[in-house]
């Protein structure tokens, strides 16, 4: 932040009224925000330290609910699933996006608006609708199995979402579909902003496509990669809708994730304290990962 003299002078007088009036402008937003977001979050933290079935009196639990996150396999699994899903929700979209950006760094594309609109479309659809569409694709007689049979790979066909081994990757692929367009749009915009001279210089030095990608495109896209990772990680870990509609955590708990576990425990099996602990742990995980991303990828000191 460059704090220049005129700015400071402006601030001293601006905007012509006592600065305390600022509080009045903030008050209404802060009120709603505090009552319906900050306070409930505080309550979540409190609930995570009690045993409560939602009806009778709560009893103190100490760190029991948190200890269970590590000790109870039924709680460990959702977190393991979530981390594995991040490969599909975050790593793959970023990788595919980079591949495309690399391929396109040398070409000016006509009709970019059309491609951008289409590639980004999965981001604006309700996840409920996305889930319904993909349930169809992954159904026993759905598009994927039909295609496999048509090309002679019928032996691979299976009820993807009902398969203990394949349900989690199948849900992951849906996330890849949702996230890839976002990464592509980000990187394509970023690549256009890398100075052309850098590419020309690389080529004069005799750099091939791979060296050019590593030396020019990748460093040039650092900020965009950080944004892409942050957005896809947050969206991936918050992902409740997809799981609820496609598998409800099943078969067994093969696709259960923390976001689903919060709902399941609080409203279906009456383990409110445990549900709150999962929610708080999920928050911590999201914070930790986003800070890590901005440190490692963006080189920011947070």
């Amino acid at each position, binding site marked *: 932040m460059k704090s220049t003299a005129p700015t400071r002078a402006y601030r001293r007088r*601006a*905007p012509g009224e006592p600065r*305390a009036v*600022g*509080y009045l*402008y*903030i008050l*209404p*937003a*802060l009120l709603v*925000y505090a009552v*319906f*977001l900050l306070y*409930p*979050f505080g*309550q*979540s933290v409190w*609930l995570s330290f009690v045993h409560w079935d*939602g009806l009778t009196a709560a009893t103190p639990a100490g760190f029991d609910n948190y200890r269970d996150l590590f000790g109870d396999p039924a709680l460990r699994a959702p977190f393991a699933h979530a981390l594995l899903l991040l490969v599909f929700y975050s790593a793959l979209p970023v990788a595919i996006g980079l591949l*495309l950006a690399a*391929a*396109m760094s*040398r*070409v000016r*594309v006509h009709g970019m608006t059309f491609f951008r*609109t289409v*590639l980004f*479309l*999965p981001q*604006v*659809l*309700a996840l*409920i*609708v996305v889930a*319904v569409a993909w349930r*169809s*694709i992954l*159904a026993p*007689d*759905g*598009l994927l*199995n039909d295609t496999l049979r048509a090309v002679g790979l019928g032996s691979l066909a299976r009820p993807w979402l009902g398969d203990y081994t394949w349900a989690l990757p199948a849900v992951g692929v849906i996330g890849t579909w949702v996230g890839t*367009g976002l990464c592509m*749009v*980000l990187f394509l915009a970023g690549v256009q902003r890398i100075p052309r001279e850098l590419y020309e210089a690389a080529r004069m030095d005799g750099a091939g496509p791979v060296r050019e990608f590593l030396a020019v495109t990748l460093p040039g896209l650092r900020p965009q990669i950080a944004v892409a990772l*942050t*957005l896809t990680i947050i969206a991936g870990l918050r992902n*409740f*809708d997809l799981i*609820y509609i496609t598998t409800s955590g099943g078969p067994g708990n093969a696709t259960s994730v923390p976001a689903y576990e*919060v*709902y399941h425990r*609080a*409203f279906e099996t009456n383990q409110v304290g445990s*549900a709150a602990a*999962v*929610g708080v742990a*999920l*928050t911590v995980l999201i*914070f930790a990962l986003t800070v890590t991303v901005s440190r490692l990828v963006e080189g920011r000191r947070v």
Partner: protein
Amino acid sequence: MTTRRERGVTYALLTLFAVLSLTPVIGILSTAFGSQGSLDTGFSLPRDGLHWGNFADAWSRGHFGTYLGNSVLVTTAVVAATTVLAVLAAYAFGVMRFPGSTPLFYLFVIGLTLPQEALVVPLYFDLRYAGLTDTYAALILPQTAQSLAFGVFWMRTYFRGSAREVIEAARIDGANSWTTLWRVLVPMGRPAISTMVVITFMWTWNEFLMALVMISDEAHRTVPLGLAFFQGQHSSDASLLAAASVLIALPVVIVYVALQRRFIEGMLGGAVKE
């Protein structure tokens, strides 16, 4: 200079991914016009003409008319409340200085990463205690609070970047901070505000978890919640389910196609920190 081969590869890749993006969407559209009662749970092509009746059935038999009404009401309220509150708060954060302004602002920014899952449990018990579950308020108030995180963050960036001279000029003309905001800065900030409006609209329209938890009576269901229940009851009727999906997605898609730039800018900007 780019070679012909490079151009070819680029367009081939773009086309491939465009097709992959569109396949589920076209599948749903095509199924929505198919004939009801087909046992195929996968996508289908409308073989014997377009069955527009599926939409009418989803609308009346599936009660999507009611659900759409609820969604319109809730979304309008959330967008209006978020816009006014976010503009007011962001104005103060952007152009005024007062003790505690930075920590207060960061309090709002935290909301950008805070998952709903960490709020929904106590919110349910609080609102039930207040007798507000199964009301529009239960859908509007928490959603407004969550949208404010983005709204305040986004609008503050605009106010920060707005020309100091303009504010100064307005002040010299005798405008107080209130008139400066509404007469000068808000009209000038229409692009930034419309981005915030479309993003809030989309998030609220598509919101599912809060609705699932807060609403148990049918009369207050929003469209995503309606679709989830509809799927439970009519999962064998693929064409009706697809028609309902189209009805839900259409409003957002129409706005998206018209204001594509605003959507992309807002969704990617939400994570760009200063």
